[in-house]
């Protein structure tokens, strides 16, 4: 997952809390997103899954990676201020999580 200094752009006003987009028309109801989501953002439905808790999405990207129908799009990345601030201050060198950080 990229951290990237260019990420430090101000968020657009009035935009949703995250970048998760679900295209129900493409859903084949395979249920993979139901399995992989750590915050139960999707719920089972009759013919396709339902997006029920979009605000709980942490943009980990698991649903997008495992959706064989490309019905889910999310700009995945690390929700870590320390990494973003370091990336903004150090440029290229700051793009990795530090040695002292997440293991």
């Amino acid at each position, binding site marked *: *997952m990229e951290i990237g200094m260019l*990420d*430090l*752009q*101000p*968020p657009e006003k009035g*935009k*949703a*809390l*995250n*970048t998760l987009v679900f295209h129900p028309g493409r859903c084949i109801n395979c249920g*993979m997103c139901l*399995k*992989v*989501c*750590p*915050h*139960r953002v999707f719920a089972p439905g009759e013919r396709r899954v339902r997006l029920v808790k979009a605000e*709980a*999405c*942490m*943009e*980990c*990207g*698991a649903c997008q*990676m*495992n959706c*064989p129908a490309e019905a889910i799009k999310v*700009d*995945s*990345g*690390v*929700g*870590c*201020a*320390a*990494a*973003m*601030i370091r990336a903004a201050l150090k440029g290229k060198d700051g793009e990795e*999580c530090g*040695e*002292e*950080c*997440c*293991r």
Partner: protein
Amino acid sequence: MEEGYAKETLTTVPQLGSKERNDHLKARIGLDRMGHRVRPGLYAIGAPERTSPVLVTANYTLSFDALRSSLTGRSVWILVLDTKGINVWCAAGKRTFGTEELVKAVQATGLASKVEGRTLILPQLGAPGVSAHAVKKDCGFKVEYGPVRAEDLPAYLDTGECTEEMRTVRFTLKDRLVLAPVEIRNYRWWMLLMILAAVFVPFYGPLVLAMTLGGIFLFPALLPYLPGKDLSLKGIVLGVLLVTPFALYQLLFWHGTFVFAAVVAEYLLIAAWLGYLGLNFTGSTTFTSRTGVRREIFTYILPMAVMAILGGIAVVSSLVLYAGWL
């Protein structure tokens, strides 16, 4: 330790001993950060047969040990990916626990000739790095996602299913507090300085030490109870709460106009400091998103900087008043 995937099948046991406890303690306090590795390869635990399930994990000792210690009395295969000693979730983010590495591990260990089953059971938190349908296409193995936590594996292996509870990430008091020792290590020189200050500098020494400990222990402990959704705001609130007893003491027992400036300075500086610590805790939580954190940075950095500058001005004013009052 030898590099790369072991060609031969390795063995392991579910029991953890003093060697493991020592290793886990070191990992928890941040010693030898990159040294907590397991040899990548295929492991037999118990007496697995060619049809036994294959579980996949990272080559970080805490991940591997959590997995095998949950498998008491079971006979299964464990495929350890080379994630450079990083846990499943973080490695999935970096794609070292990923589609490519998984396919590579399957091939390097000769898994297809050692087991008859064509299913791999992955921890759910590995899913951000792995595309199940791509793995199937690339090496013929079907990926199944097991529970988030290894402790739920026995139930999953028995039923073949996960409950909603087993699929949901938690962030319990224990989960939050286990992070504190690493923070102490990261701030070790600052901590030492604060402890010395607490001994030798009256009032302000203990004040700053209390704030440091508050940031390290109370912030994660009180996280769900502090008001607001943003971690910066939670930090600011905690700062205000922690300064208040010190401020009341000063207002009651210290005399002179400088006291008011000093109290204002303390509120502004400590709130800004703990707010910043709160912001930096985002990456340790199990729920912040990149979009949310970006918004939080842009909402709070400027107000916190202004608070810090005003706090600095208040410190100077207080010193001037104190000197004049003498």
